[in-house]
């Protein structure tokens, strides 16, 4: 892969130099974060932070308003109050920190109105996947309509997919132009997350290049995956993207956010990701504005672990799984 040259709006050109990644070295480094042992208060704090960073997601062909209502309810109050009361009875001497709401719910455009209704006034963001999610294999005008509709319905964040076909055949300009166009369709107030679908880009060199292109094109966040392709988010892929964000920040002063999505199911995994963010980008990114988890079942495990952390006991799984 060589240096990539792109035309940017206004007629100028930018070049993105090849930045090679050694796969084995990256895998090894990513592995070191999973060796960290996070205990006690630092663990509890991380679990809370992970909840605040969660984009609670449902992206099924079988999504219905009923499902989305349930999801929004859980987004606002992840745990039914009665169980919190039970927990406080178990540990009467401990001060229980309230369980926060999640950062956002993430749904298809068709479900955005439902989410808007349910989340009115909560401050929880409504993220919508758009641009012919997940394959992105439709003409740009249709993708843009998809985006405009979602925004019109009230989505505050758009999770777009890049055209992987164009990327893999070397038509980087098309990939870039689409992101620029979607960003414009989003307007200034709607955050744009650009999904690279790293499971289809395959190599870390590709991930690095796609990350950089997305950031140059105006992404507010870069995101690993749709969740529809395996592998979805992995530690090494996320590391490559975090390092790209770091270098982009060093060069431009712009702080871009990161969202690993898909495959993060356990609290332990989430903590590994937070450790990785902590030891690469640092505290500035340990913030829901800068880092999100795209996940559905993760939230339940975070709650389970929080309860266990307070009480030393594991609760019924079912009490957390209402959504």
């Amino acid at each position, binding site marked *: 892969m060589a240096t990539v040259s792109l035309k940017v709006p206004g007629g100028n050109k930018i070049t993105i130099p090849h930045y090679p990644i050694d796969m*084995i070295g990256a895998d090894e480094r990513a592995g070191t974060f999973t060796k960290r042992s996070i205990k006690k208060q630092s663990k509890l704090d991380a679990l809370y932070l992970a909840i605040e960073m969660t984009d609670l997601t449902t992206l099924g062909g079988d999504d219905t308003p009923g499902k989305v209502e349930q999801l929004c309810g859980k987004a606002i109050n992840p745990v039914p109050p009665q169980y919190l009361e039970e927990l406080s009875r178990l540990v009467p001497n401990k001060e229980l920190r309230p369980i926060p709401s999640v950062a956002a719910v993430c749904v298809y455009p068709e479900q955005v109105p439902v989410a808007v209704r349910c989340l009115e006034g909560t401050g929880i963001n409504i993220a919508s996947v758009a641009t012919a999610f997940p394959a992105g294999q439709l003409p740009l005008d249709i993708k843009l309509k998809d985006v405009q509709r979602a925004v019109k319905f009230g989505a505050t964040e758009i999770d777009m997919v890049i055209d992987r076909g164009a990327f893999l055949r070397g038509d980087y300009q098309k990939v870039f132009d689409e992101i620029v166009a979607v960003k414009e369709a989003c307007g200034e107030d709607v955050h744009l997350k650009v999904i690279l679908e790293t499971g289809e880009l395959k*190599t870390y*060199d590709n991930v690095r290049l796609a990350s950089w292109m997305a950031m140059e094109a105006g992404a507010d966040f870069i995101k690993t995956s749709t969740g529809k392709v395996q592998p979805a988010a992995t530690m090494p892929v996320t590391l490559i993207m975090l390092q790209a964000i770091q270098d982009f920040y060093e060069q431009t002063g712009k702080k871009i956010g990161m969202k690993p999505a898909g495959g993060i199911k356990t609290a332990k995994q989430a903590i590994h990701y937070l450790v990785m963010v902590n030891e690469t980008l640092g505290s500035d990114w340990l913030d829901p504005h800068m880092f999100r988890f795209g996940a559905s079942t993760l939230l339940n495990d975070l709650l389970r672990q929080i309860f266990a952390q307070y009480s030393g006991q594991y609760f019924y799984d079912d009490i957390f799984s209402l959504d």
Partner: protein
Amino acid sequence: MKVVKTIKLYINGEFVRTESGRSYSYNVAGKNTQFARLCQASRKDFRNAVESSKEGFKSWASKTAYNKSQILYRMAEMTEGKRHEFEELFMEALGKTQGEATAMVDSAIDTFVYYSGFCDKFHQIAGSINPVAGPFHNFTHIEGVGVTTLVEDDEFDFQKLVDSICSILTGGNSVIVLLGEGCPAVLGPLAEVFATSDLSNGTVNILSGHLDELRDYIAQHREVRSVSFQSSREDVFHDMKQKSTDNMKRMIPRHKKQKCLENILNFVEYKTVWHPVGY
């Protein structure tokens, strides 16, 4: 009246007199008649040889195994071409019969041929690909140690001399030969073999002289990376070993036999290379 020639040293591809201006007489075996005069190599001659050998090593080490093999075979051919000269020397200087002399040359030629065939094979026998427990390609490659000094036995054995030189060359090293007192006159025709075998200057240097004068100097010269000690003087070997520890010189004792892999492996280093296997 016979003209007694002075046999010159062979340094850096040239036949030169010792810078010290000293020579000594080499007599016909068992008689008091002079066979030839030989240069008595000095420390400075040795130092010059080391300088030349350093360059010779670089050039020799960078040749392909196939090319090394060709050159060693060329040495066999050139020895064959000088067969009569060698035979006459052995008969006249050592008192060998024609049959004995012929056998000596035959076995030396065989030895050149033997090592010629080893140049591009011993890596495959003694090198390795190592199945490490991880995503790495790992192989152990063999290369020469560097400038090597051969201390030849005082009891002359042509085949052993050729074997000692070849095992060093085959391993990828340059060699400075210090001939023993047995038949230093072999320097002449032998050096001509090397001079006409497409070797770069300095790959082989040959000196005549006295071990006792040079031994400390050889042991302590840090550019000499190894010594093949084929002399039977074990006390000298131990003494040189002791004096050579400052640069951790590889001090190789007398070979137990000829024409074998072990002799080559005495003068090699193993280099293990790791590289990740990934996209």
